[in-house]
Every structure is written in structure tokens, then in C-alpha cells.
């Protein structure tokens, strides 16, 4: 696929929902070790609502506004930490594409940067805090680099995916700063942050969809 159009969005989110359905128990278990064990549940619920939300909120010819509106509806459906962060990412990513018809490589990079900024603002977090941001931020950087060099959407998505994987891997050595995990520093050493793992699966699924 060379560009992502509005009509591709339901399929894209269906693919994401499929991945999170598959990873549900794994994510719940990771989360239970550090927090409250609901992570897989909310990710599946949030992303499986998105195809419908995108259809209900389609703004003709404006992929940005469509994503923004669907994202803000998703926030109401999964108001947990990661649910809200994912929704905030989609909303801010959508804002950056306001007025655009579709996403090519550079707009995909723009979307990912918005996604990361949305998380950063809502979570009041920085890169290095051992959160989902570490995966998404790295994905955005790698995508920006590739896209600015004139790469295709598929190449850009591949770079983003590799960035997310790297960013996720890097959380293994980070100390948790936020909430429930912070008290369990010891348990977190050498293990990926569960939120960053969500980020990794997210980009892997996007890349697979785009390359298919």
C-alpha cells in the first residue's frame, strides 16, 4: 500500500484489534506483575471499537479530523491509563493531519510524531521514564528519518516498527517512574515495560498491514 486512505482505516484498526486480541492474556499477565492486570483487556476493547468509531466519525476528505474524532470517542470507551494514552496519541496524530485526504510516508511520520506528543502531554512523561512513550517516540524518530529521505510508506513503516522494537527493548534497563509499577523497581529490571510492549505490537501490526 502506498498511501493510507480514509477507507483503509477500518481495516487498519481491525488488524490492530486482531493483534491485541491475540496478545490479550500476555499483556494482562505482564501488567499483573507490576500493576493491576487489566492492560490486555482494555487494549482489546479499545482497538476493537475503533473500526466502528472510524466509520461513524468519518469526515469526508479529512483523514486527520476522522482520526481525531474517532480517538476522542475511544477515550470514553477505555478510560484506563493506556486506553487514554492511545486515544490521546490518535487524537494528537489526527490533529497534525487536519485537512489531509490521506497518509503517505511523510504524513505517516507526522502522525506518529503527533501520537508521541499526545502521549507525552497527557502522561506528563519524558522519554526514558519507562513508558509506552519510549516505544512510540523511537518509532516516530525512525519514521521521520526515513520519510525525509524520500522512502516509501512501507519502508517508513518498517523503520517505525524497528524503532518501536528498539524503544521497547530499551525500557528493560529503565527505572519505572509512574504509578503502580514504581514501587516494584526490582521486579521491573530486565523486563520490558508493558506499555512499551503495547507500543511495539502496535507498530508491528501497522507495518504488517501497510506491507500486506
Amino acid at each position, binding site marked *: 500500500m502506498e498511501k493510507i486512505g480514509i477507507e483503509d482505516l477500518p481495516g487498519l484498526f481491525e488488524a490492530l484489534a486482531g493483534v491485541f486480541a491475540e496478545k490479550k492474556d500476555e499483556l*494482562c499477565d505482564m501488567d*499483573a*506483575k*507490576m*500493576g*493491576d*492486570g*487489566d492492560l490486555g*483487556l*482494555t487494549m482489546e476493547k479499545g482497538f476493537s471499537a475503533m473500526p466502528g468509531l472510524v466509520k461513524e466519525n468519518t469526515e469526508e476528505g479529512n483523514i486527520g479530523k476522522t482520526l481525531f474524532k474517532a480517538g476522542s470517542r475511544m*477515550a*470514553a*470507551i*477505555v*478510560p*484506563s*491509563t493506556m*486506553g*487514554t*494514552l492511545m486515544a*490521546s496519541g490518535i487524537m494528537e496524530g489526527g490533529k497534525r493531519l487536519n485537512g489531509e485526504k490521506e497518509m503517505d510516508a511523510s504524513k505517516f511520520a507526522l502522525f506518529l510524531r503527533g501520537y508521541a506528543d499526545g502521549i507525552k502531554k*497527557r*502522561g506528563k512523561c519524558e522519554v526514558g521514564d519507562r513508558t509506552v512513550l519510549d516505544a512510540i517516540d523511537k518509532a516516530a524518530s525512525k519514521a521521520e528519518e526515513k520519510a525525509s529521505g524520500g522512502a516509501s510508506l512501507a519502508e517508513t513503516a518498517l523503520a517505525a516498527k524497528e524503532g518501536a522494537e528498539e524503544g521497547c527493548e530499551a525500557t528493560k534497563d529503565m527505572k519505572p*517512574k*509512574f*504509578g*503502580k509499577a*514504581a*514501587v*516494584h523497581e526490582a*521486579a521491573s529490571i530486565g523486563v520490558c515495560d508493558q506499555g512499551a510492549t503495547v507500543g511495539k505490537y502496535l507498530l508491528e501490526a501497522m507495518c504488517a498491514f501497510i506491507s500486506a
Partner: protein
Amino acid sequence: MKKIINAPENYTDDMLKGIYRAHGDQVKYVNDDLRCYCTAKKKDGKVAIITGGGTGHLPLFLGYVGENLLDGCGVGGVFQSPSSEQIYNVSKEVEAGAGILYLYGNYTGDIMNFDMAAEMLEMDDIEVKSIVGADDVISNKDPALRRGVAGIFFMYKCAGAKAAEMGSLDEVLNAAKKAKDNTRTVGFALTPCIIPEIGHSNFTLEENEMAFGMGIHGEPGVWNGPVKTAKELAEEAVKEILDDMPVSSGEEVSILINGLGATSLEELYILSGNVSEILDSKGIKIYRTFVGEYATSMEMAGASISILRIADDEMKKWLDMPVNTPFYSQA
């Protein structure tokens, strides 16, 4: 999982239906959304205090909506934040011309959603201030990063009283802050609880094992080990609290002995007696003792001990003020 429920996915809404049916004279919901929980007795010109959080902690959070306490509550699913939209809708309903205080527990999901709702209200030119309960000593060395647990009751009590006295938004915020700065909590669990939609507990404890410092969502504690006596637990918890917030001989405190759900009131009073003896032995005076279920985790067995250092006489007056909600009355 043994629970008196219908479909697990309807747990929160079935509970809310029961609550509105029982207490429709005192509370109501708005926007056709059961989870937008509001007082039915709005008072003009009063600062509106709004709380919110996940289901599974009754009487927390919605149980404190009522006379001389809170005005509204965003109700989330089990252990999940309410949405920003729900908080916004509650805010629009109960706002009475004097601004809004958001007063809730220090959990990321809740913070993000309350912040989003506050941003939405800014657009409507409604003034909102926020403060979070963060009393769980064990949950973090950094006070700013601690979880909010049962001690939020003292914040509700002080802020609610100040608002009832028709204090300004800043004054109500300061009352909440005064309670917050002087409250510490330590808790421990003897059994886990089960989220209805998950169907099994997310941690296990052996036949004679307990978890000291465990969070109210089952976040692991600082140690797991054989069940200690009430006296030992009281000693360990009071030590943790006083190490973090020194209280001198002759000073006054209020104590809250909170049951997590399955622990009997008999046990809570045994524990309360032991906590009192320890404070007595240090010459610390007890102004008021609250014992019961104030913040639970459904059917988790265990308890928490909160100590509020009495900052001044005004605080005593706030503690003494009668309150009345469908879930909690103080005459």
C-alpha cells in the same frame, strides 16, 4: 469466582441501578449515563466538589456524595477511571457558580481523565482546581507519586466541610490540602479479590500468607509472609506512618481503621484497640476514631490504618461536622 451478580459485564451498571433505585431521593444521574453520578440536592453558590474513580471500592467513591461532603462522582468500570466526558458532564450538572474542586486518587488513568475534563471546562469558562489523594506511604518514597487510598476520606471531610461553610474555591482547595499534608496510610491484604469480568484473582496468597503494603487494586506489597497478629501489624503500620510523618507526644491525631471488604468489623475493632494502645504509649492523643469500611477492594480481606495529624482547631471542626449521604452518616 463466587459472587452475587448477574452478567459480569453488567456489574457496574447493575450496581448503579440498584443504588439509584434505593436512593433516588438523594442522588441522580445525568446525560442518560448511569455513570454520571450527582447529588440531587445542589446548593447554589457553593463550591462543587467532584470525585471519581473505578468501581469496586464502595463506599468509595460515589458513597461520599451527599450533604456536607461531595457533589458529584464520575464512575468508572471495575478499577478503571471514568472517562473525561463523564467527568465533564457531572461537572456541568453540579457546578453552582463558585467553581469546582476535583478531588480524587493519585492514579494515572484518573489524572489524565480529570485533566482532560478540566481542559474542556476551561473552554466553558468554569474554574476548576484539582488535588489528588496520595496517602499510601508504602507505594512510593516520593510523596508526589504515592497512591491514594482510604485516607482520602479525611480530605473529603475537610474539603466538604469548608465548602459547606461556603468557602471560596481556594479555601476549599486549601482545606483538602491541609488534610492531605497531614494524612498517611498503610494497608495489608490477607486475600485477593476478583474482577468480575476477569473471573480469577490476579495474585494468590498461600493458606497462611499475607501481603503487607499491597495496593487496593492488588498491586504487590513490600513483603509477603505468614499472617502476623493484630498487634504486630498495628506496630509495623504505625511505625511506617510515624517514620514518614513524625507526631510528637501531646499532639492530636484522628485515626481511620478501614476494612478492605471481607474482614469482619470485629477484627477491625481489635486492630483499632491495638493502634490506640500504641499511640497512647507515645503520648499521642486521639481526637476521633473511625472504624469500618471506607475504601474497599470488593471482597479482599485486609485492612488499612490511616492517621491524620490534627493541624489546628479548624480541622477538628471539620471532622466534627455532621454529614449525610446514602452510604455514610455522621450525626
